[in-house]
């Protein structure tokens, strides 16, 4: 025990002495098999967590970040279930990763009601993620209501683009 303590002290002090900072990502390497190889982890020298490599891999479902909805609906349709669950598993396996879920609506009707509806969309995704292993602290769900449309104008093609929840990773 005392040995461990002394080692810790040394590490601490030498860290101070050398004035270098170890990237936080080292804490994340432990344990589970999430497909990350050691070189991936060491590869990031900018301080940017290397799990982003996986998130941005166009072949991975994790590169998809939006859930779309029917009019006035807030439940995640079955076709988007796997997308939400994949992100949930990723969060579970990378406890340092965190996301903001932004709920959005089309621009019909009251702005405040749409804000609440967007919130409900984001909350629904959040709940599914937590049930699939992500931690509450990793997820903040917010709403942008109808304020940040992807597509402009009226008509179902624009509206359906705007009824969505976006998954944004912090630090990305």
């Amino acid at each position, binding site marked *: 025990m*005392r*040995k461990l303590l*002394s*080692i810790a*002290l*040394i590490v601490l*002090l*030498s860290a*101070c*002495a050398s004035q270098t900072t170890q990237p936080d990502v080292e804490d994340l390497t432990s*344990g*589970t098999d999430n497909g990350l190889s050691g070189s991936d982890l060491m590869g990031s020298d900018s301080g940017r967590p290397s799990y982003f490599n996986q998130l941005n891999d166009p072949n991975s479902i994790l590169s998809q970040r939006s859930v779309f909805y029917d009019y006035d609906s*807030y*439940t*995640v349709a079955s076709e988007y*279930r796997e997308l939400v*669950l994949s992100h949930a*598993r990723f969060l*579970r396996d990378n406890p340092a990763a965190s996301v903001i879920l932004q709920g959005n609506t089309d621009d019909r009707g009251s702005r405040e009601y749409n804000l609440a509806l967007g919130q409900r969309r984001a909350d*629904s995704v959040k*709940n*599914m993620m937590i*049930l*699939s*292993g992500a931690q509450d602290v990793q997820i903040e769900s917010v709403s942008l209501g109808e304020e940040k449309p992807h597509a402009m104008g009226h008509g179902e093609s624009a509206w359906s683009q705007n009824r969505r929840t976006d998954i944004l990773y912090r630090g990305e």
Partner: protein
Amino acid sequence: MLIRAFFLLLLLSCNVSYASFFGDSEAREQIDVLRKQVKEMEVRIAKMDQALNNQALVELYTRVETLGLELGKLNGQIEMLSNENALLQKRQRDFYIDLDNRLRQIEQPGSRAPSSHSEPQSSPRSMAAPPPDEHAAAPPINNDITPESFPAEGVDSSRAMDSGPLSANELAPPGPVENGSYKEAYDSFRNGEYTNAIAQFENFLGNYPRSSLAPGAAYWIGNARYALRDYQLAIDAQKRLIGKYPDSNKVPDALLNIATSQFEMGDRNTGRKTLENLLASYPHSEAAGKAKQRLSNIK
């Protein structure tokens, strides 16, 4: 910086000396233990993974959300239905009052075509005086004006309430203000504001003693007294009505109310006499029917 370097050296030397206490074999043992623990942990994690990957929870959640939506819709339907129910009840009440008015006019041969006023005439539910089954036999309150003569112009308005009996054809049909003030008083009664209603009807009687609505006002004063459980005052009020408007069609109802009050006061004999009197004097009135029924009940 110097101090820090000194500490570092000190600690390093400590460390070296500690390390020498442990042999190689001891370290290996510890490593084996740790390996075993790691393996156990991996098995547990694999189990948890499995538990979480089995999507039962997520499906359950989706179900809960769907149920929430359906619950909302059901809630909405209940809200709509209770609203429609309330509206229907109100409409039904209005229909009843209207129908009652029309029937009353038909039942009174020789009475004038319906006058423009249409105050509610059904006896309110909150009223305690007549038993519930008497609802249909709601006391008529006006239209007891005969078409022949309307001495409205010639009426000596200085004649006050207590100045001797007035026959029906001495009564004038109500004007709009008169009608309004009667309706206001009646609304008070219907809302259960009996004290207010009494004051308003008394006021009405003071202002329009010769109105065709006056007997009705007098009758409702008695009824309001009854509802307040002031039975003696109720009897007095109805007696005043009978004395003042002896040939009003309100008289049988007034007698019935007197009898009910007398029973309430425990005066069964007087009550029975009043009922018998009612039966004898107004055998064809609706009130008489009630009186007959009640007499058979108390035998």
